[in-house]
């Protein structure tokens, strides 16, 4: 029975590792994309002037 719990714990840890890992990746990607976008827009406006 204890051996079964090892597998159950492994399964849940893996699930959370994947979900949280992907969440972190998305948040980082979003922050990077937003700052790149803001920089690009600032440049466009500078170009307009």
């Amino acid at each position, binding site marked *: 029975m204890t051996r*079964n719990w090892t597998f159950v714990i492994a399964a849940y840890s893996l699930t959370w590792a994947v979900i949280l890992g992907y969440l972190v990746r998305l948040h980082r990607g979003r922050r990077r994309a937003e700052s790149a976008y803001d920089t690009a827009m600032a440049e466009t406006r500078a170009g307009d002037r």
Partner: protein
Amino acid sequence: MVVPRPGAWRWFGVFAFAFLIFTQTLAILTSPPDRDMGDLEKILYVHVPAAWITFLSFFVVLAFSARYLWKGREKDDLLAAAAAEVGATFNGLTLLLGMIWGRPAWGVWWTWDARLTSTLVLFLIFVGYLALREFVDDAQRRAQWSAVVGALGAINVPIVYMSVRWWRTLHQIQSNPNTMDPAYVLGLRANAFAFLFIMIYFIHQRYVIASLQRATEHAAEAVALGGQQE
């Protein structure tokens, strides 16, 4: 290109994760150990929802790819790509969880069963899809090609399932809800919804990133053309 900004979506994400924690705790605490498998039955609440979400995501890919081919709107392409990435993530998770479950329950990490083989092939098809997107630089070409590859990949999946079923499993009888005790059904359904919310949140986030990147590229092009924006 309209760039979405955060708003209600942030609260949706918080809700989705809170709901997932709730349903998983509920399922672990309320489900009785199974007669044959004992506590291993608890893996059901992560493995099966992950598998359902995989198939649902790839169905979303098919739907948006088809609409892209029909209407040619960039938004559909980015949504299809977001769903493909989320789907591939859950697909990989499903396979790994299946192995963790298979080892104690069947005694093997892997077997050439129809379900297992076709899920692996599905994963490979969408790894190819994501690789194609990486290797094509021109935006329109990338959108057209990946829409076609996504749609053809989706057509292939039922054929793969059918062929490997004939190949190895010799008409194994499909599982159905009647084989499950009601004590398990509620936890499974609740977790399926939690995974669904997570999927929607992930796809939306991924889509926002992709559209920000596209908007940045458009802006860079505009600068290169001497600030001639319309």
